Structures are given as structure tokens and as C-alpha cells.
């Protein structure tokens, strides 16, 4: 299973070297001996399932945590940052998924925050502008005026500003955590071009991503973490994706998309010419029991708006919605009673309450019957939740554990368990596998299959085409607010879906 030790890395000339790094939180060992070697001017992909220890490793690199054991070297010198500031100053910069900028400050103030050129207590604005401009031109943002407020920039631009900040501090190792998760295809290309430029200047990049295809495209080598250990490393060229996935999950993934026999039943959800105030525009579809209907399309095509409009979160401008025997637009609370449930694409902001327990999250839409009269007993909430934890399964201590303490994949499973607890007939799943690990994805696919086989209807939005082709019975493509006709899965392939998504009618 484990490939032979990587010959291409000569540790004596390594930019960054981590050897036998261990970290323990209470009883759990988050890292059980991680080795990571990155050469100067090399892009290293760091992959692994959620919970494999990537974030702990990153925090140690960033100086936010200290390892219990192991050695770290930066350009041959011992590297043991006591805090994030030290790490940045030693040349290790971290770009997190959630951007760390001060939105109200100007671009140049953000780039030089904490290292402002000063004259006594006063800021030297001219020098600041010069240095910021230089850093901006390195990352290809020459057109941006350094005085502009950061919040006026797009997400892609903000990310580049963060990279500019790292460049301004002369970073030698740039760590990118899921850098493409909120970027469009075009922006991703630009980011990759920038990474190659930085590489040619000798900057090493650690690239962390769930999008293995992307990682493979940009990285020279990869390191796979599983259960807190380095389980493999090698050159990306000549290593198949299947091989990397197998290393990540510790088993071959042959049956990623299970499919039981499903028999489509009555129509439970029907929309006709449904329009919201911006999107969707005149969308029609019919969803049957025992069926998984997928909606493909580009980000911003209006897929999320379609889901929200059906569920009553966005207002209907015109058109019809019928759920079973119920007719018309409704509020979300009504939808729940009509046995429609939704999983939001935005877990953190919209989908789940991070500060509450798993049981609270699962039982929230249906608290009736969890106590005498109108009372709700916490013990009953936990009891109602426990079967789902065991069945799905959700990896957690117990039902009263705080949701925020779970890994992304398990959080998502809680979001779906909520629909199961509410016993809905129609499941609206918006990007149900976004940002979660392969193992959890497989569990969610299996769950969707089981639900469909039991006669539930699933409407699922996804940006990941292989997943749609694997899970759905029929697929419709949305483009600029318009929903195309739903066709059998066998009529589609990746290329046809992409062509439809960018709005080119094919014959």
C-alpha cells in the first residue's frame, strides 16, 4: 500500500522538513508521526480525509499549536514558532479558506498590517504605498489601487491580497488551504498561474485541497495523511487519482456510488414556470417518489435560488409549486409540515447551529412528541437522535456533543439526519457533499440511495459532475436562471453537462 520512501527529496536541501511530528489532545492522538518534506520552489499537495490531521498539522506549521514531539526545520535551521506572528516572520505564511483580512481597511493597510513603516508613532504612507504596490504587482494585481477598501474587492481579489501580504513579508513557504473552494474556473486558472510564478521565484507552496484533480494539476508531489500519519508520498505525475484516493481512505473505493433498484412512484413535487425575483426564471420540474433528480450548472446559475424558492426562503414572483396535495408558495415552517426538508449549501452560516448539541440540531424542525404536553425534554431529544447517529453513522462522542466540534463530514451528516428525524418525503439537498472528505461522501451517497429505495424523493444540486452522474436517476441543467429539461442519466455525460451549463444548446 505505502509507496517506497520518496527518492526525489533530499532532506539536506529541503525548504521545509517535518519529521515525526506528534500532537495529542487529551485522549485523542491527532498526529501520530507526520513526515513532510518540501523542496524550494516546489508545490506540495497535502491531501487526506477530514479528520486525517491536516488542520492540526497546519496549525503547528502556522505556530498556533506546538507539537508534542518531532522536529521541524526551515532551510535546515530548527523551526519552532511560538505563535502565528513568529511563524509568519520566519517566512511561513498561511492562507486560510476563510480569508483573514480586515474588510474596512485599505488594501495597502492590510498588506502591511502589523509591519507598517512608521516614523515614530506616525505611519509613513508613501513608503507603505510603495511596498504595497510592489507586492500587488507580484501577485498580478497591478491594476488595484492600494488605497481602495478591501471589502470592495471580489473574493478572488481578496485572496490575492492575502497572498500579497505573504509576499510582502518575504515568505518562503506559502500554505494554501482549499484555495479554490470559492473561485470560478477562470480565477482558478489565474491562481495556478500565480502559484507557478511564485514557484519560479523559489517560494515553496503547500497546497491543501479536497479537489484532487486540481491538486494533481498544480502540484509536483503529494503527501497523503490518514489518521494522523503520513501514509504515502510521491510525484503527482504518473500517480493515478484512484491510487491517491485509496491511500486516503485506506481501502479501494470501488463502490462509491451504490445503486439499489428504485421504482419511481407518484409525483410529490411539481413546479411550473416558477420564477423568483432574480432567479430562477420560469423553472418547471416534476419529482417522483423513489427518484433522485440532480441539478447541474455553474455557480451562480440560480440553482441555490431555485431550492430556496421551493422551500419558501426566497419569494416567488410567479409560477406554481405543488407538494403532494398542497398547492402554492409557503413558508419554510409550513414546508416542514408538508414533509419537505432542505439541507443548505452553507453549513456554517445557514445550515447548522454550531454552538448547539447534535441532538438540538437534529430535533429542531420537529420537537413535537419529545416530552409531555408542549414540553421538550433534553433526554427525549437525545434519545430521538441516537438511532440516526448509529445508523448513518455519525462519528461523535454522544448526542450532546457540540456540533462545532465535529468534522465537516459529520456535520453534514447531522444536517441530513435532521431531515430523517423530521421524516420528510422530499429532500432538497444543496451541495450535500461540499468540502467533506471522501469517506463521508461515500456514506452520504449510500444514504441517498437507501432513501430513494425507500420511496423518498431527492432533489439534489451539485457542482461536482461525477457525483451527479453517479447518484442521480435524472439530471437537469440550470443556466442563467433557466432550468433545462430533466433527462435520464444515461443521456448525459460530463461533456454534455458542461456544454449545457455554459449555455450552448447541443443537438
Amino acid at each position: 500500500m505505502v509507496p517506497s520512501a520518496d527518492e526525489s527529496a533530499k532532506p539536506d536541501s529541503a525548504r521545509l522538513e517535518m519529521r515525526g511530528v506528534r500532537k495529542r489532545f487529551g485522549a485523542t492522538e491527532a498526529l501520530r508521526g507526520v513526515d513532510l518534506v518540501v523542496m524550494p520552489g516546489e508545490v506540495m499537495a497535502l491531501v487526506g480525509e477530514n479528520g486525517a490531521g491536516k488542520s492540526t498539522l497546519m496549525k503547528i506549521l502556522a505556530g498556533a499549536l506546538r507539537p508534542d514531539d518531532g522536529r521541524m526545520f526551515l532551510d535546515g535551521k530548527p523551526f519552532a514558532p511560538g505563535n502565528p506572528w513568529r511563524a509568519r516572520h520566519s517566512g511561513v505564511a498561511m492562507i486560510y479558506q476563510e480569508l483573514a483580512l480586515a474588510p474596512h481597511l485599505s488594501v495597502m493597510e492590510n498588506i502591511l498590517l502589523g509591519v507598517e513603516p512608521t516614523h515614530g508613532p506616525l505611519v509613513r504612507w508613501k513608503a507603505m504605498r510603495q511596498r504595497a504596490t510592489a507586492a500587488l504587482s507580484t501577485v498580478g494585481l497591478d491594476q488595484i489601487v492600494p488605497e481602495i477598501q478591501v471589502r470592495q474587492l471580489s473574493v478572488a481579489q481578496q485572496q490575492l491580497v492575502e497572498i500579497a501580504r505573504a509576499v510582502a513579508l518575504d515568505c518562503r513557504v506559502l500554505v494554501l488551504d482549499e484555495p479554490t473552494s470559492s473561485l470560478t474556473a477562470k480565477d482558478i486558472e489565474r491562481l495556478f498561474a500565480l502559484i507557478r510564478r511564485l514557484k519560479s521565484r523559489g517560494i515553496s507552496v503547500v497546497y491543501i485541497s479536497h479537489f484532487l484533480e486540481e491538486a494533481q494539476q498544480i502540484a509536483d508531489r503529494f503527501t497523503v495523511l490518514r489518521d494522523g500519519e503520513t501514509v504515502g508520498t510521491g510525484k503527482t505525475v504518473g500517480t493515478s487519482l484512484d491510487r491517491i484516493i485509496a491511500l486516503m481512505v485506506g481501502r479501494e473505493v470501488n463502490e462509491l456510488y451504490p445503486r439499489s433498484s428504485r421504482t419511481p412512484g407518484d409525483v410529490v413535487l411539481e413546479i411550473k414556470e416558477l420564477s423568483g425575483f432574480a432567479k430562477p426564471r420560469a423553472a418547471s420540474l416534476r419529482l417522483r417518489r423513489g427518484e433522485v433528480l440532480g441539478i447541474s450548472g455553474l455557480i451562480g446559475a440560480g440553482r441555490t435560488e431555485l431550492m430556496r424558492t421551493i422551500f419558501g426562503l426566497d419569494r416567488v414572483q410567479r409560477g406554481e409549486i405543488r407538494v403532494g396535495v398542497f398547492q402554492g408558495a409557503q413558508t419554510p415552517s409550513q414546508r416542514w409540515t408538508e414533509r419537505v426538508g432542505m439541507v443548505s449549501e452553507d453549513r456554517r452560516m445557514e445550515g447548522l447551529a454550531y454552538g448547539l448539541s447534535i441532538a438540538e440540531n437534529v430535533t429542531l424542525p420537529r420537537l413535537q412528541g419529545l416530552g409531555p404536553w408542549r414540553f421538550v425534554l433534553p433526554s427525549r431529544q437525545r434519545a430521538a437522535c441516537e438511532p440516526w447517529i448509529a445508523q448513518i453513522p455519525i462519528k461523535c462522542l454522544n448526542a450532546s456533543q457540540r456540533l462545532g466540534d465535529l468534522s465537516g463530514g459529520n456535520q453534514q451528516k447531522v444536517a441530513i439526519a435532521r431531515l430523517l428525524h423530521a421524516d420528510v418525503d422530499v429532500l432538497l439537498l444543496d451541495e450535500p457533499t461540499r468540502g467533506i472528505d471522501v469517506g463521508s461522501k461515500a456514506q452520504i451517497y449510500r444514504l441517498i440511495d437507501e432513501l430513494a429505495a425507500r420511496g423518498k424523493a431527492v432533489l439534489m444540486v451539485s457542482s461536482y459532475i461525477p457525483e451527479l452522474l453517479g447518484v442521480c436517476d435524472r439530471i437537469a441543467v440550470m443556466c442563467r436562471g433557466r432550468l433545462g429539461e430533466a433527462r435520464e442519466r444515461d443521456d448525459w455525460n460530463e461533456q454534455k453537462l458542461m456544454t449545457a451549463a455554459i449555455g450552448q444548446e447541443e443537438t
Partner: protein
Amino acid sequence: MSDPIETPLVPNATEEHRRRPKLVLGNVFGRFIALLAVFIFFAVLVEGGKFYTLRNLENILRQSCVYATAGLGMTMVIVAGGIDLSAGSLIALSVVTVAWVLNLNVAGADGSVQSVVALHPVLAPILAVLAGVVITTVAGLANGGIIVGLRLVPFIVTLGTMGMFRGLAKGIARERDIYPPQDTWINRIMDPTLSTHGHSGILLPTGVWILIVGVVIAALLLRYTRLGRHIFAVGSNEETARLCGVSVGRTKLFVYTASGFFCGVAGLMQFSYIGGIGQPTTAVMYELFVIAAVIIGGASFTGGEGSILGTIIGALTITMLYTGGQQMGWPKWVQEMVIGIIIIVAVALDRLRHRRA
């Protein structure tokens, strides 16, 4: 929902740049226009042109001094993402402390008991001023210390110290008003200069000059110093500021201490304004007016936004509404309701503007 597909990576940035300074100026300018509108409203409606006499305008300026001065510190606190509910109590603490020092008695050379003021007519007021400002500055430092040291929410901490400092003021005054035995120059810092002939040389009351100096210092500090920019950074995104090596704790400590200091200075003005009495029950609810002035002045409650100039305009707007309302003969309850409405309207307008931007 924005559509990332259609957003180009690099928009016409130079154009956006040209927009920005206008936007910032526009913020303050818009508020100034609102202030002007309030002024014109009362100037037209208050009969006999009484509203726009120089004396009345000076009066408004004098009255807004206390809010505005305390508002300087409050602006820093709110920009840093915090809140200081103890401002009113701090003002009272300063008032009482000044009176208490002026009221001290010492044994004279011949063994008789004499008042400090009588004995040291120059030194005693200076000592009183120092005592008043130092005690509130230390109190502000305590606010910051508790918030930073114990990692507590500023709202709760200053809600607690609001009671503590008010109690302390009452304790110092033994729950009575303190009447210092004789007047000193402190009593006169808020005296009108246009109605009395003795002060004509300084054009405006001393208190107003003190405020102007404070405005200049606070504005420069916030806009041009490293510390000032760090205050904005902490309010805008605390985690980022920490990541970039900004000492978040020290920055917070500073803003609460500054708030204490400026409340102390505002207390001196209040002392003079209420006629040189150490009244422990003075300035009740002032924190709300001060916060309102800062918010009307364009600060964001979530931090990262706000300006000294805006706060001054906010303080003037509130005072003008009160004075104008009084002169229109509005009952007190109407005045209070109007101020409340204005605060909500100001914040709502801000919200709208942000959403459009």
C-alpha cells in the same frame, strides 16, 4: 447573491479608487447636511429668529461639549468593536472627585482648620483637575483590564462597572451633593463668552477650546498613527489583527483607557456646566447620548468604522434637537421620542447605503 462567474478578477480599479475618497468624505458630508437640515428646520420654525442668534449657537456648542468630549473616547472604543456603558458614571465620578478635592480641609499653620482652596488658590484647582482625570483614566484602564484579562464581553463588563463607578462617586460624595467653599477657574470653563464681558479675549468658552484640541489629537491618532490603524484593524477583524502581530490586548486596553480619560475631561466640563457642584447623580444615561452621537456620526456597532468628525456632528445634532425642541415648546416626552427616532433613522439610512454599495 453575487455571481462569481460574471465578476472579472480585476475590475476597473482606477475607477473604484476615484470613488473611494469621495465615499469617505461623503459619509461625513451627508451627516453635515443632515445637521444643517436640522438647523434650518429650527431656524425657520422657532419664532423671532431666536434659534440662530450667536448666543443660542454658543449655547448649543456648550451643551454638546460634554457629549462630544466623551464621544472622542467612545468613538475609539466603538471603532475597535467594543462599547463603554460606564461613560455616564465616569463623568459623574470625575465631577464628584473634582468637588471633593476642592472641598478638602487641612490644618493651617496656626492649627485652625482651613479649606484647601483658600490656602492654595492656584494649586488646589490644578490638583482637583488632575485627580478627576486620573481617577477616570484609571477606571477606564480597569475596564480594559477586565475585558482583556478575563476575556469578557465589553457590554457586560461596562454594564457592571457602570454601577460600580456610580456607586464609587456616591461613596466619595457620601450620597450628598458637594458644594466647594469657593469658586475657582474650573467653574468658569464652560461659561459663555458672548454674554459675559470678562472672557471676550478667547472668543469661545475654554471648554470648547479643550474639545477642539481633543478632536485634533483624537482624529490624528485614529487616522495617521500606527496605533490608530490598529484600532480599526482590531474592530474590523480581530483574528486577522492578531495573526498580523497587532497586540490586540494592548490596543483594547488603550481604547478603554482613552475613553476613561476623555470622560474625565468631560466631567470637568459637566462640573462647570452644572454650576460647580459635586453632584453624584449627574450625567445619568449620558452614555446613551454619547453612544448615540457616535452612531449618528457613522460608526458601525460591529467595529471597523467611525470617525471623530462624524461623532462631533452627531453630538451637535442631538444637542440641536434638544435645544430646538425646547425652544419650540415641545414637551419633554416629545423631545425624547424625536431623538430616539432620529437615532433609528440614522442607522437605517446607513444600512441602506451599505447595502447599495
